[in-house]
Structure formats: C-alpha cells, structure tokens
C-alpha cells in the first residue's frame, strides 16, 4: 500500500500530501508526527545512531530543570496556592516527558511519577477532583504496586460521588499493604457512606 506522504528535504519532515484530508488518515498522521519528533530528536542528538539507553546518555540538564520546577510547585503547595501548584507540576511533567524517546525509560518513569503525584495532590487540594482522578489513574497504571496511588484515586472518586468505585480503589490499595492506616480508615468511612446511601 502506498500512503499519500511527502518528504521535505529542508525541514527533514514527512507530512501528509496537501490534497488529502487529515481526518481521513488520522492514524497515519499520528505515526508521522511521532516519526518527525523522533527524527528531530535524532538530529539534535548529533550522533550517527542513538546511544544505548543508560545513565550516561540520560539528559541531566533536563532533569535539573524538571527538579527546579517541581521545587517551585512544592513551595506553592506550602503557601496553599494549589491551583498554581497544579500548573507548575503540569509544566514539570511536560518537561519530564519531553526528553528524547530513546532515553532510558527506567530513569524517566520516577521523574514522571513524582510530577504526577504532586499534580494529583494539588488537584485534590484545589478541588479539581476529575483531574486528580485522571492523574491517579495514570499513576496506578504506571506504578500499580504503590498503595498511595489507590488512596489518591479513591479519594478523588469519593469526592466525585463515585462511592462504589472509591471503595474498590481502597480495597485494591489494601491488597498491596493490608496495614495502611489511611486506606483502612477511608475504606471504613466509605462503607458507612454506601450503607447510608442505601438507607441502612
């Protein structure tokens, strides 16, 4: 199969032909944008081929920038500017996930998780429970063995009025640590609330 794509030698980018509609080739366009991103990352890397993923080839200056932004967000949290903190955590997250795709995933994931943790907490405190729920959902997907992520997701779900979902999240979290005091307390509370809702 031949795709309607064209290569521009000056920008080194592959794009959809002008005479086709983007909506018709949605998947192809996603693939092309990912290819162009990877090409620009390879060009900026400079080497003949991308280096093997390791600690040495990991971009440390980007890590330092992410850390700075994270620290700024933490200080906003301390002064109770939760909406600002959520935005700053979001920026830190963007920085962390903007590194070259061929860099070590093992080193990227803790950075991303720390930013998501912070943003989730900031959103919970700011009352943006749906955003907090989404952040916690990503956290439970990328690091499923951390009970605190289920606590965050459960609290967000409870505040969204999803009591049964919240109960399931607390129970899941307790599977990883049976003696987690906050999860236990939240589970007890939610069981009582569900019973109240059922008229018991």
């Amino acid at each position, binding site marked *: 199969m031949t*795709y309607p*794509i064209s*290569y521009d030698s000056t920008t080194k980018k*592959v794009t959809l032909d002008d005479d086709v509609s983007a909506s018709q080739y949605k998947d192809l366009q996603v693939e092309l944008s990912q290819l162009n991103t990877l090409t620009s990352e390879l060009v900026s890397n400079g080497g003949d081929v991308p280096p093997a993923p390791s600690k040495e080839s990991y971009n440390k200056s980007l890590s330092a920038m992410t850390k700075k932004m994270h620290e700024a967000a933490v200080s906003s949290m301390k002064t109770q500017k939760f*909406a600002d903190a959520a935005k700053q955590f979001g920026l830190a997250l963007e920085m962390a*996930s903007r590194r070259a795709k061929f860099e070590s*995933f093992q080193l990227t994931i803790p950075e*991303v998780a720390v930013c998501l943790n912070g943003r989730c907490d900031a959103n919970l405190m700011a009352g*943006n429970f749906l955003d907090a729920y*989404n952040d916690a959902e990503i956290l439970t997907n990328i690091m499923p063995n951390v009970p605190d992520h289920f606590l965050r997701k459960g609290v967000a779900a409870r505040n969204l009025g999803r009591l049964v979902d919240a109960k399931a999240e607390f129970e899941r979290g307790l599977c990883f640590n049976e003696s987690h005091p906050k999860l236990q307390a939240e589970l007890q509370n939610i069981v009582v609330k569900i019973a109240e809702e059922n008229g018991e």
Partner: protein
Amino acid sequence: MAEESFIKEEAAAKISVYTPIIYVVVMITALVVFSVVYRRRNVKHLQEMKPFFPENIPREIYFQLKYQEPKPNDKVLKAALIRRGSEAIRRMMKLRENQQHVKLLYERGSIGDELFLRHQFASKIQELELQELGLEAESYKQGWAPTFFAVCQEVTFNEALRRRVKAVDERKQVLSAEWGLVVESAEKKVEKKVTEAAT
C-alpha cells in the same frame, strides 16, 4: 486334488507382472495429488485468514521512504527504522502476553482453530520481522543491531507513557460525559470566588 492345484497355478500365472507396478504408481500419484491440493488449500486458507494485528503503518512508511526518489536523509530513514522496530517490539510483547491465555483457551475449547492459528502465524511473522530488522540495522551501521533493539524498546515504552499522559484531557471529557459531571475550569472557579467575595 492334482486338478485343483493346477487351476490355482493357472490363475496365478494370469496376473501380469505390471500389476503391482501400476498399483504403486497409482497410489503414489494419488498421494502426490492429495498433498499438492491439501497444501494449496492450506496456503489459500492462510492467505484468506484475517491478520491478528491491524495494518503495520510504521513498516509501510519505512519502505515507502526507503525506496522513494530522491532518497530522504539518513536520519529520517533511521528514525523510520526505529519506529518500525518499536512497533515490532510492541506487537511481540502483546503476543507474548497473550500466548499462555490463548493456549489455555484453545486447550479448553473456548476458542477455535482459526484464532489459535492466527496467533501462531502472527508470532512467526513477528520473529521474522525482528530478524529482518536486525539485518536492516546492520546495513546502516556495523554493530548497531544489539543496541538497536534496546533503543526500540525504550521508544516503545516512552511513547506509551506519553500517550497516557497526553490522553488526560480526552479522558476527562469521556468521564465527565459518562458520569454526568459538569467540569469547571480553574479560571472559572477563581472568577466565581472573586464575584462571591465582591458580593
């Protein structure tokens, strides 16, 4: 008694010496025809079988760019090859994840021959694809193949992570529609608080 044995001898003498040869020839021809027809049917069946995975877009893009005139920059081709490798690794991982379950379901009779065959077939295709990718990587730079697959794996994981992080807004809309929530932006909330404070 003597007359009876004479009749038997006469009957034995009537069978031609070519009879067993013809018999063997007919048997072999029948087996060859059966084998040819059977194999053709199998190949046709495999060709008609629905592929396990959808179209491999990164692979097609790579080939299209590789054989295009004028030839794109080497970095673009390498990036396209890495994306092709990343897709191959993603597919291989999916197949390995499913392998045990597919086998178990097949043994229990929960899935049919066709799905099981499609899975087996896809595994073989992916193995060949990985071999081909190794050779292709070597053609760009001698000794690149060992680090090439490690790079492809990182690209696969990092892309998956980015997809999840980027899907937050879309997921928010889906959930709010599903749960019937009214989502207020942070700006609107601040505006509301300001007007409340003013009144």
